[in-house]
């Protein structure tokens, strides 16, 4: 064999090797194969385990595409926009839902329900959770089913409240009073002899600041949009709410204007802060001796009231079927199975708050998760973030100004006026396209 021929063969082999992965692209057999895009984290893990169970029960093969939270949205959006049909089911965080629904890239589930003789999802689902899955909100067509039922809770130290003769705060005024008392009295009360801060919040720009602010904003009577759909965050109520947040910040550990969930969690677990608004996902860590210095001392209550009753922000994980899914029918079978009472109990055991009332009320689960009654109450009374496809951009701008006000860079009035203007521009820009 000549050298040249050897070279030619080598190149041919190389090219063939490069082409091999393409063979995998052949279409899977219909009905036997579904692909799932999930969040890597406790929510996705539960669904992943459920998928494995489903595979062994039915023989349907389930591919899992797992992405970190920060990438999941962009992966799904790009794929759905390109109509590639790569996923048959997608997990989505509820604030993303209006974007997907308004782009018309999700399958209307009511048709699939009808084919099975049902006219709507059963009433066991918590109403506020199902409302998130409809577009427009609450009233429109059904494009998803709720899988994980998170909503905010008010975390506080039962032992410190008893010690200082304080009651579970029903109003934000009571929160300030309690925060003041604890900050002043507990100057050496923390494990290790440090100070206990009365309150801890997160005011890092973006999602963190907005999530901690919304319950205060709503309780003070603020609304993000007026009746004509124009931004109204700089209303008298809105400015008063932000001033209150800054006031509360005086009892928060210094630097809270850059805190995210992990810093808030660390302060609570280390016993260096007494109250906060937080999400149920943190509850289990308080009982973990490796992480927690406050075992058995935390209580989980309802969001305090202001002028209006206290309402938590809802944050559910939904599951939807893309419009271009290759196996919508098989995907829907799995979706119904995964959100059934039986399976949601499994998911609850794996650490996810359910979206079904019967699961929240299940005696076995309540024994394991004593905060379930409080969680159900919070969820049923919760409010969603404003339902707009522009939410990511609005939340970003709003969060920047909230963070600036909390770090002392802007006054509450200036921050709200500038935020309002920025939100107005975002909406105007979207309207002109």
């Amino acid at each position, binding site marked *: 064999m000549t050298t*040249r021929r050897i*070279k*030619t063969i080598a*190149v041919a082999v*190389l*090219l063939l090797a*490069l082409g091999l992965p393409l063979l995998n692209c052949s279409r899977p057999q219909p009905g036997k194969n579904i692909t799932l895009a999930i969040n890597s984290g406790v929510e996705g893990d539960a669904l992943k385990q459920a998928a494995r169970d489903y595979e062994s029960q039915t023989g349907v093969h389930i591919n899992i595409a797992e992405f970190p939270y920060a990438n999941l*949205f*962009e992966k799904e*959006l790009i794929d759905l926009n390109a109509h590639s049909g790569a996923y048959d089911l997608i997990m989505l965080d509820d604030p993303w839902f209006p*974007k997907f629904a308004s782009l018309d890239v999700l399958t209307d589930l009511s048709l699939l329900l009808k084919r099975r003789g049902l006219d709507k999802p059963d009433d066991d689902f918590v109403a506020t959770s199902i409302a998130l899955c409809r577009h427009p909100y609450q009233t429109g067509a059904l494009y998803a089913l709720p899988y994980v039922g998170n909503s905010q809770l008010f975390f506080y130290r039962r032992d410190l409240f008893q010690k200082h003769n304080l009651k579970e705060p029903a109003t934000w005024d009571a929160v300030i009073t309690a925060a003041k008392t604890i900050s002043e009295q507990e100057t050496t009360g923390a494990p290790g002899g440090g100070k206990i801060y009365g309150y801890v919040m997160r*005011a*890092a*720009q*973006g999602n963190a600041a907005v999530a901690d602010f919304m319950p205060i904003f709503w309780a003070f009577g603020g609304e993000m949009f007026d009746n004509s759909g124009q931004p109204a965050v700089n209303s008298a109520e809105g400015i008063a709410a932000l001033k209150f947040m800054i006031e509360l910040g005086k009892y928060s*550990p*210094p*630097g*809270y*204007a*850059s*805190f*995210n969930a992990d*810093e808030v969690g*660390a*302060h609570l677990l*280390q016993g*260096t802060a007494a109250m906060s608004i937080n999400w149920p996902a943190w509850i289990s860590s308080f009982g973990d001796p490796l992480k927690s210095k406050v075992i058995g001392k935390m209580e989980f209550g309802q969001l305090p009231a202001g002028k209006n009753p206290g309402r938590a922000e809802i944050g559910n994980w939904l599951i939807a079927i893309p419009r271009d899914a290759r196996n919508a029918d098989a995907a829907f079978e799995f979706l119904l199975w995964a959100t059934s009472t039986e399976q949601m109990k499994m998911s609850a055991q794996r650490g996810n708050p359910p979206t079904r009332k019967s699961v929240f009320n299940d005696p076995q689960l309540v024994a394991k998760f004593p905060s379930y009654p409080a969680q159900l109450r919070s969820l049923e009374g919760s409010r969603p973030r404003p339902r707009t496809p*522009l939410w*990511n*951009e609005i939340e*970003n*701008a709003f969060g*920047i*100004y909230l*963070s*600036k006000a*909390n*770090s*002392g*860079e*802007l006054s509450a009035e200036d921050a709200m006026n500038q935020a309002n203007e*920025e939100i107005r521009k975002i909406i105007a*820009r979207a309207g002109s*396209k």
Partner: protein
Amino acid sequence: MQLTSSRLFPYVLLAPTIAVLLALSIYPLIYSVKISLQTEAGRATLGNFARLAGDQFFLSALGHTFVYASIALTIEFAIGLGLALLLDTQVRARGLFRSLLLVPMMLPPVVVGVVWRLMLNANFGALNGTLKRFGVNTESLTWTASPKLAMASVIAADVWQWTPFVFLILLAGLQAIPQEPYEAALIDGSSGWQTFRHVTLPLLMPAIVIALLLRTMDLLRVFDHIFILTEGGPGFATETLSLYIYRTAFRFSNFGYAAAMSFVLLLLTNVISAGYLRLLQAREA
């Protein structure tokens, strides 16, 4: 027959590379030019570029990028040059020092971000913990959370990681300088400073320009460790252009506007790089 196939052969070998280049570089470049000139609905527009001038977020991100790049570059260069001069001499255990100095550079920027984030944590961090031991009141030293200190904090992390890079290039430059000019200077009775000013510096110039050029390009597109350390905050205090572009593209899914901003960044980087290269060529000519 023989002749044609041997002529074709190089092209066959090149083909995969060209295909990859076309698919992964050229096509995306053309595509990004296209989307920067379109509305989200696909109509042709110059709106994305027009919006830049009135976008406060863009303008302040641009400002932050320049502040960040110029301060970090100055400090990295000053320390890098000092270290290179120091370790170019017969210091004891200089081999050990040299290898130790390179460690930060080998860490992924994300890891550096996480380490600094933990160190700078106002309540539990090593830095404030140490300061407290020495009796400093750390109550107001909330590094990454203070609009005043946050920029200094992210710059410090960059300086820590990338000074070794400047040091490495300058050290290589120093070691390439022949002994003869120094001997001549010695004979002429020049002082230490004069030798440095008139012998070392001019001969080191090519290495200096290369170091500054590479660092400037990197600094202008900084992303990873700011994203981890402050995510652009508090408020907007450390948001650089790359972060804002990322947010616009992948959070707000406005790819056209993000592409337009990327081209502005590319243009600025090119202009500055061209300046450095001209400096280099002027010396060679």
